[in-house]
């Protein structure tokens, strides 16, 4: 088991992301061809037997629009919320198919062009993520119909894969996924950084999270490698790992050649006060 210890966080993340994406393909195939209903759904609602998960933002929209609480829905939302409360936006960083597809395209581009990464053209303030969350919820309330439930890019990936297996077609709303991936050309993870309401909600829940990336300022050589590696542009060297937008992907931990960046569990550091 020694070989396992040498693997980087990037390796583990890619493994988890690949398995999560494979799940999205496997579930419809199992459901359709084998009538195997034990596992079902995608990242809007996924079930393993009687263990049901519901995406928190979709559930919140449903509650806001119908103005009704529904017990099973709250139970389904509980575990993802607890996960975000303890570990932050790990869904975004480790599971979300949009981040996976973006990361894959990044890797392919790196193989083809040899360039390490493209320039981030638009650097906008981080608080746009809160605006996206508030705006989305307000728009939902004004219109009286939930919007993220049928336009959420991570959900759309699952729905399109299901449609492909079940009906051998794709729906036009799949273009949203393409558009979100194209936004990566402006700035890396442009949608995830500034526009994703689900990411905003998970960040909001994650403000007092336990799992953080912390920097040891004494051993840091200010080489900026972590700032370049961070897909969200959070600048871990300046303590960006403390921001609630951080999705704990571990890219900065891998980029650091001196081991100054580490994951830490718990909030005993005095730096934890400095959340955004």
């Amino acid at each position, binding site marked *: 088991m020694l070989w396992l210890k040498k693997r980087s966080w990037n390796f583990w993340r890619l493994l988890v992301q690949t398995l999560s994406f494979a799940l999205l393909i496997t*579930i*419809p195939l199992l*459901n*359709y061809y084998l*009538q195997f*209903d034990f596992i*079902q*759904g*995608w990242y*809007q*609602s996924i*079930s393993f037997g009687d263990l*049901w998960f*519901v*995406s928190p933002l*979709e*559930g919140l*929209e*449903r509650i806001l*629009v*119908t103005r*009704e609480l*529904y017990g*099973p*829905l709250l139970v*389904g939302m509980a575990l993802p919320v607890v996960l975000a409360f303890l570990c932050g936006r790990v869904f975004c960083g480790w599971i979300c198919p949009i981040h996976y597809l973006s990361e894959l395209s990044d890797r392919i581009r790196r193989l083809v062009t040899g360039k390490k990464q493209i320039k981030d053209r638009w650097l906008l303030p981080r608080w746009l993520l809160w605006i996206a969350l508030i705006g989305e919820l307000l*728009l939902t309330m*004004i*219109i*009286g*119909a*939930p*919007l993220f*439930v*049928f336009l959420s890019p991570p*959900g759309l990936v*699952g*729905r399109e894969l*299901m*449609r492909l297996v*079940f*009906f051998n077609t794709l*729906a*036009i*709303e799949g273009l949203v996924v393409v558009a979100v991936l194209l936004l990566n050309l402006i700035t890396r993870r442009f949608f995830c950084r500034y526009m994703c309401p689900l990411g905003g909600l998970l960040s909001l829940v994650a403000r007092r999270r336990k799992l953080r990336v912390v920097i040891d300022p004494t051993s840091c050589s200010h080489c900026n490698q972590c700032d370049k590696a961070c897909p969200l542009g959070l600048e871990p060297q300046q303590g960006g790992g403390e921001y609630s937008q951080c999705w704990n992907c571990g890219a900065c931990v891998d980029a650091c050649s001196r081991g100054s960046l580490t994951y830490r569990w718990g909030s005993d550091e005095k730096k934890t006060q400095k959340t955004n």
Partner: protein
Amino acid sequence: MSADNKRRTFIKSGLVALCLLPATASAKQRYDSPLSTNRLRPPGAVSEDNFTGSCIRCGRCVEVCPYRCIEPLDLRQGVNAGTPIIDVENIPCYLCMKCVDVCPTGALQRVAQDQTRMGVAVVDHYTCVSWQEKILCRTCYSVCPFIDKAIRLEQFKPVVDERYCTGCGICTHACPVLQTAAGKNGKAINIEPVYAYEFSLPESEITAVDGGL
């Protein structure tokens, strides 16, 4: 400077248009229910007014249906994109109630088989061959899961009792009549969705009623 201003107004107007697009689309779509004759919600669905808000489009009802009768709508239906629908002419609902059990948001409520009301069957007396006394057809009567209750025969003509009809659409699916005349549905027995009944009246019928008065 002027180019900068131009770009700014372009982005601004683009953003405003983007914000207004779903609003106008939904204002129209909200009152345009995707339900129509023979296109129904799965069993146990909450009132159509609340369905769009209750359903989170997780598609688990689609995945669980063993008869593959439930299909998700797409963005052409506006805010109803992703909601489930059953086209009973294609595949009817056999009331296995599996979709009801997996719905995580209560858009589909648990309900007994015979209490289900997806719609109500309506016999078209002008195209039904039994009512026209052409031949003795009793297909809808034979396939009805609530035989002699929901559909009974009166003088060899099928009659629907809406107290018992669940709107499953098995009769519509089985009906051998295929009328393709303009303005008529193909089948001689059709399911009118309970919540969209008033929306699905064709224009001609409304004017006909008005003219008669």
